[in-house]
């Protein structure tokens, strides 16, 4: 029981760490496209790790109702598909509008 709680805590902590990295990247990176690099990737893994922790926690503490774990898994699959698609759509809209990507040596935008 204790071991499971440790694993769940590690997963939740790692998930929060990557979400935090995504937030820092959003603030530090110089332009629109590079900022989306940080958020688009870190959110997927961060949320994935948090959901994995929740699934393990639920399966071991409430083994009678596994459907909640299945719903969490469906949530992860949805994020796994929707997050890169949304990132791509936002980038495409900006590129079609004519926003020039930042090059090395330019100032922050």
């Amino acid at each position, binding site marked *: 029981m204790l071991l499971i709680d440790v694993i769940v805590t590690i997963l939740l902590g790692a998930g929060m760490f*990557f979400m935090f*990295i*995504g937030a*820092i*990247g959003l603030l*530090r*990176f*110089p*332009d629109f*496209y*590079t900022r*989306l*690099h*940080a958020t*688009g*990737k*870190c959110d*997927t*893994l*961060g949320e*994935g790790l948090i959901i994995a922790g929740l699934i393990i926690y639920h399966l071991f503490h409430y083994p009678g109702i596994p*459907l909640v774990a*299945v*719903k969490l898994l*469906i949530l992860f699959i949805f994020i796994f*598909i929707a*997050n*890169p*698609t949304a*990132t*791509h759509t936002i*980038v*495409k809209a900006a*590129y*079609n509008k004519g926003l020039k*990507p*930042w*090059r*090395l040596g330019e100032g922050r935008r």
Partner: protein
Amino acid sequence: MEVGGGEKMNRREKAFGIVVTFSIMFLFWLLLSGFFDAFHLIIGGICSAIVALISHDLLVRGKGEKMVLKSFRLLLYIPWELWQIVLANFDVAYRVLHPKMPIDPLVIEFETSLRGDFALVTLANSITLTPGTITIFVEPEKGKFWVHALAKEHANAHLVDKTMQRKVADVFMEW
């Protein structure tokens, strides 16, 4: 294939699409509702049937040939993709936390052998999730991709190594 079998074949494709859509919708209903008594099963069956009849062509388009094989290959591809996401995150974390921020963004373009909708979407989403690259634009006719890369080594992964293109082409058998 015999001549004049087009109509018959078409009907079979349609039936196949409806059955597959109905199965997925009904499974989804069971998982989300969590009730397994007769009332909820019948309601779910009716709803799944209506959805399958109206919109089966959205989910299963065309012949659906070798669909089982492709789905199986896609399942084998996903673990590799998940591992790439982990690598991508450590890469981004390094670049975000490094005091000098070692990034040198550039836009690259390359052509692939992929033509199918699902194959293109899979590769586009994979590119967005893997280290340092985001798909900007896809041209389906030529299988051409515009990609924004965070640094030179990320661009080379798609221009020189082409590991991901080969893997996706293997999955959908569109070399």
